[in-house]
């Protein structure tokens, strides 16, 4: 179809479809990643589904947009040579922006350039961005960039610039700096990466986040930036002070079994409701410890160990714990020339 009514219809449909799909995907993504919890995530998922159904039928109502993703598209960075700061221009030029609560930043040509111009753009226009409550910088997958190639940035100035921020999600750890973290309202901090540097972990360890309810950290592996060991995690949990924490996630580790007793020994076990040890190389060794010790923490309502190397028997035993248990995505170890290999979910 060229230059015809049908093309117009197709474009219009594409726009609606895109919006609907984005909303549903956003809801699903945040739900799947556990960024939202319980009724909130259900609410978002339902909202996405409802929009998906209605978008094809109804005229778009701009005031319903609360979450939006911005990125540089292929033509923009590969052919037009636009730089990451163009993302800020796109955001500011968007009439939906003033009504947004959630800002998602996708690919900015992240394998080549840092997102620093985007972070700086937000900091420099702090008042303009003050209504943003949820921020995700680096929302891209393997189709767009290797996670370990994402050039992140320095977030030191962001904490003061966005005092109303409640949720921050960062994907990628290369050149990631969090600086001195101090924020009174931040409730959720998630870092998704193939390897978390000990300098970043140190920043979190010293962070002043009195409202933090959820901490989700992908530990990853040495090849992609994790330069610590089990002691690094132990120190983090010993020294960090998050009085409001109810969700603790130490995930995507190839020493997941070692992490289990460290987490269970931490002070946070007496305050959290959700323990997330998913996406790693958890075997029956760690499963046995969870089985023995977790029932003594009566406040824990959910155990998430999805993506694991547990046996069928251990999965069954864990599911009998008096709490919600997610043991989905059972993995099989890879054997080669007499050696057995286990890998965490995100190690790229």
């Amino acid at each position, binding site marked *: 179809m060229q230059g015809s009514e*049908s093309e117009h219809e*197709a474009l219009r*449909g*594409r726009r609606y*479809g895109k919006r609907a799909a984005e909303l549903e995907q956003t809801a699903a993504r945040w739900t799947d990643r556990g960024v939202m919890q319980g009724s909130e995530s259900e609410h978002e998922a339902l909202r996405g589904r409802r929009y998906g159904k209605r978008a094809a039928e109804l005229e778009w109502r701009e005031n319903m947009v609360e979450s939006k993703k911005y990125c540089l598209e292929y033509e923009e960075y590969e052919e037009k040579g636009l730089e990451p700061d163009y993302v800020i221009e796109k955001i500011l030029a968007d009439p939906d922006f003033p009504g947004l609560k959630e800002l998602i930043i996708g690919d900015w040509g992240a394998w080549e350039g840092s997102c620093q111009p985007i972070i700086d753009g937000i900091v420099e226009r702090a008042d303009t961005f003050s209504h943003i409550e949820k921020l995700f910088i680096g929302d891209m*997958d393997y*189709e767009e960039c290797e996670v370990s190639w994402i050039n992140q940035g320095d977030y030191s100035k962001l904490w003061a610039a966005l005092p109303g921020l409640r949720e921050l999600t960062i994907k990628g750890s290369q050149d990631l700096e969090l600086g001195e973290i101090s924020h009174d309202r931040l409730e959720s901090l998630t870092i998704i990466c193939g390897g978390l540097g000990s300098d970043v972990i140190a920043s979190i360890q010293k962070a002043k986040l009195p409202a933090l309810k959820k901490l989700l950290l992908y530990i990853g592996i040495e090849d992609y930036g994790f330069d610590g060991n089990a002691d690094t995690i132990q120190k983090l949990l010993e020294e960090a002070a998050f009085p409001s924490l109810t969700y603790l996630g130490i995930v995507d580790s190839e020493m997941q079994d070692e992490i289990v007793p460290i987490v269970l020994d931490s002070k946070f076990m007496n305050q959290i409701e959700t323990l997330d040890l998913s996406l790693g190389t958890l075997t029956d060794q760690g499963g046995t410890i969870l089985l023995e010790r977790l029932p003594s923490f009566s406040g824990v309502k959910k155990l998430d160990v999805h993506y694991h190397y547990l046996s069928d028997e251990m999965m069954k035993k864990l599911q009998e714990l008096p709490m919600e248990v997610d043991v989905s995505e059972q993995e099989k170890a890879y054997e080669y020339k007499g050696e057995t290999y286990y890998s965490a979910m995100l190690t*790229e």
Partner: protein
Amino acid sequence: MSAVVLLGSADTRRSVYLQRAAAETGISFTLMDWRKLPEGWPGREAQHQLFVKIDPPLWDSCRLGELGELTADYRRALAELEYFAGQRQTDFLNTPAAIAALLDKRTCKHMLKTAGLPVTEMLDGEFKEAGALLEGMKTRGWHQVFIKPVYGSGAAGVSALRIRQGGDRMALYTCAAMDATQGIVNTKRLRHLEDPGEILPLLEEILRLDCIVERWYAKAAYRDCCYDLRAVLQDGHMDYLLARLSKGPITNLQLNNRPLDIARLGLADTMPKVLEDICNRAMACFPGLRSAGIDLLLERDSLRPRIIEMNGQGDLIYQDIFHENRIYRHQAQMMKRWMQAEDGAVT
């Protein structure tokens, strides 16, 4: 007298489910096994009017180095069929020439592009070695590409290469691997390599297969998977449209990727019609083509459709045969209409 012949293989899903559809439609066909073709065409001496459907011959080799030879044999057989058809009254579901044209990904893509259709862009030129490919990518400004043997299906040898400008880092997703005794083989298991010392020698072997190089577009996503689409078009109608979800860049159902009903993607209601129009324009580029499987992607964010490739024998969709068997039922109807027309003409 009119007769329908399936040139294929016994006890395959293709022949079994077409047989079921034919029985439901009240027709029958003769199965001619590829292996018996050298012994002669059924009814060759008789004065039957024939309608022939050609299924692909069975290949079980995992050696990618044999792809070229196997395809050459197949193309020769198709050319012989085309010649034979010219000697007597024979109609085809898809003519041998049309099937052969779609086997060659390079020519097929050129024809589609010349016709103004949206396709995944190819890197101009032929790349026989890794250095030339990396230089070509740099010149074009592309940092990630797909490398596909010109002849091949089922993701055989298909690889996805990504480089960081400056070439200091690279990543390769591939099912190809070097085997000490068999050479380069299709493992049917997607691997992710990042060591240039491992990638570059493998890349050299892959490029020796005669490959096209296409831009790697970020495909549309559904939850934490990306997807592309397989459409099956027959006689101007889109009989099936299926999404193929993957957690890796290569979306092929033979790699155990997950199929998904397109209705769950949240696409605009207008999208199937847009895709059907594109597919019909693509099919019109190949005279003699009445049935094809067409792979399309939707670009991330813009959801702009592009044709990835076409297959003149891409009509086998498990999700269909195990449910409605819609595609083969339509083919059976096409055969029945042909028989009625032929028999009517005779009487």
